[in-house]
């Protein structure tokens, strides 16, 4: 009896979370429509919102683009979400992603290593960059947000400096002003497609990366929910002092969770660049990679649930790709970013939505119970 009740409570809690996220998405899209209407009222719906919502499914190639961008986003989303679950805010995913990109591309372009070793290098460098804020937090009590922000920029400038190398960097292709294309210089370092690209209109960047990302999501879910290690990490997040009192080494756990979060973000960069979705441009990259910050969006939308992150990442990539298909005659592709950002702003107070939905459900249940009582 008791067990049954706790189960139904758990599932209704999950339902409430999903419902709250859907409310955020609905309001976000509605506000997006308002923005579209302000820019160009005549075309706002047909040439605006509908294009964003439909394009991702319109052709196999578009679907492929969505998938290719979803894989790394799942990883950065997992990175941020994992840290959230352990009570830390990993705003450093962008920096860890940058380091991961460097590791993957260095091993691929310079060392010509097979793809799984490149991915491992991306993971290791991401983990290193994630560990730093953890160490600062554990031993010096400096807020991980501040450290991560600083090391985002340090990492970006460092990676750009090494890659560009005054125009003579080993990975820098003068003719394209980006890093060398893996397809040309090191095809062996590309993540295998295993027929995926044939499925999606011969788009070469569709690889098994999406499956790797999903496997990671499941692994993170298992670690967080089914292992003692995950339990300890979460305990530290809920209440550091109580965890300490229960004999959990909180310093070690803070560093470990940031390291794991960094590793996840690093893998994300590996999946992106080893699938040759794009090349790194070390010269104009004065801005941190958006994939890292979108990971925050994806994690928040999924309420940090690893499995939910798969779907939220799919959704964000979907509308981002939809945004690029907007006719430049009327709109710019950044509208999709505006919509995502609005959704995240709403997510920040999703607790409010959750309470509303909970109250609604309770009122509903009470009225049905009252009805039942009347029948008896």
């Amino acid at each position, binding site marked *: 009896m008791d067990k049954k009740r706790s189960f139904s409570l758990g599932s209704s809690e999950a339902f409430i979370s999903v419902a709250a996220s859907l409310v955020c998405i609905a309001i976000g899209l509605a506000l997006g429509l308002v923005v579209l209407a302000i820019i160009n009222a005549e075309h706002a719906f047909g040439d605006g919102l509908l294009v964003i919502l439909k394009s991702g499914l319109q052709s196999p190639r578009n679907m492929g683009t969505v998938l290719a961008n979803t894989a790394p986003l799942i990883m950065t989303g997992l990175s941020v979400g994992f840290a959230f679950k352990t009570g830390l805010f990993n705003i450093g995913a962008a920096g860890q992603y940058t380091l991961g990109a460097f590791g993957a591309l260095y091993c691929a372009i310079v060392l010509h290593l097979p793809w799984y070793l490149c991915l491992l290098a991306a993971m290791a460098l991401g983990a290193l960059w994630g560990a730093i804020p953890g160490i*600062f937090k554990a031993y*010096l009590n*400096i807020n991980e947000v501040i450290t991560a922000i*600083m090391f985002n920029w340090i990492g970006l400038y460092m990676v750009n400096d090494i890659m560009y190398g005054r125009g003579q960097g080993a990975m820098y292709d003068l003719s394209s002003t980006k890093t060398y294309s893996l397809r040309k210089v090191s095809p062996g370092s590309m993540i295998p497609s295993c027929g995926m690209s044939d499925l999606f209109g011969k788009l070469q960047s569709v690889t098994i990366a999406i499956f790797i990302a999903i496997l990671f999501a499941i692994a993170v879910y298992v670690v967080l929910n089914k292992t003692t290690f995950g339990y300890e990490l979460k305990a530290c997040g809920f209440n550091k002092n109580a965890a300490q009192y229960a004999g959990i080494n909180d310093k070690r756990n803070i560093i470990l969770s940031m390291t794991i979060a960094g590793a996840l973000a690093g893998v994300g960069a590996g999946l992106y660049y080893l699938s040759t979705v794009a090349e790194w441009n070390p010269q104009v990259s004065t801005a941190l990679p958006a994939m890292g910050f979108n990971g925050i969006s994806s994690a928040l939308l999924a309420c940090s649930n690893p499995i939910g992150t798969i779907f939220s990442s799919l959704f964000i990539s979907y509308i981002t790709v939809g945004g690029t298909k907007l006719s430049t005659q009327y709109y710019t592709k950044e509208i999709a970013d505006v919509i995502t950002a609005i959704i*995240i*702003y709403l997510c*920040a107070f999703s607790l409010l939505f959750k309470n509303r939905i909970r109250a609604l459900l309770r009122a509903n249940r009470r009225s049905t119970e009252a009805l039942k009582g009347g029948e008896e």
Partner: protein
Amino acid sequence: MLFLLLKYTLLYTVVLMMVALGGMFSERSGIINIALEGIMVIGGLAGVVAIQFIPATWNVVAIVLFSTLAAALAGMVYAALLAFASINLNADQTIGGTALNMLATALAMVIAKGVNGSASAKLDYSNRAFIYDIGPLTVNAFLFIGLVALAVSTFVLYRTRLGLRLRACGEHPQAADSVGINVYKMRYIGVLISGVLGGIGGMAYIIPSVSSWNFEVGVSGAGFLALAVMIFGQWKPMRIFLAAIFFALFKSLANIASSTVLASLNWTQNMYNMIPFIASMVILAFTSKKSRAPKAEGVPYDKGSR
């Protein structure tokens, strides 16, 4: 050359100081303002657009005043979004701020492209009204605005009733409430002031140095640097001023390194760009034990809690 260094140092000092002072007001009232970067972008955009729309025939002082007012207003309105989420809706302040940062860059590009009517987010403008030559030294209008802001901030924070109440809300809101201070109102004031200063700071970052700006890069991390300045300055106006000078010096070295004796060091621009961030980490590491942030910052105020 020395004058060039001085010019850039003054420019960045004013920017970092004003934005950090803004952050100080917000955090002293109890609200973490990580959205400074986004506020700067929106303020800068408003300032640039205002200059484009103001007829060039206007008096120099009028141009400066009106465009700065536009930046301040835009920053304030944008900061109100943070205030609304974190004060009225008890949202997580760090997440709300991060969302506003992401929204700012996207929104700025949409607006800039809209103003341009093209696919480029690069806006051109005239910055002649803002720049004056005093002998061999070039200064900009924001130097005066910044110094006034510093003096007024110090006075308001330490010498007025408003400042005392604001600080109380950041330290112990329950105690403040018990003596009849409206905590929500004080926190709104704190965040809105940070919007005004952040907006002007964003404009001061963009306009005096170049005459066209691509909003794709936002303000390239200046807002986050200001956040570090604020912490290094220990949430105190004069210390923030000194911290801003220190950070600005390194940032300026990046700009002029290639044309000076420093060129013989053979450092790339990226290395100079890195230094302020590394320096702030080193300083934070050494001062963290003594660091004292406002006690109640980041905690939504709940009237019922004890």
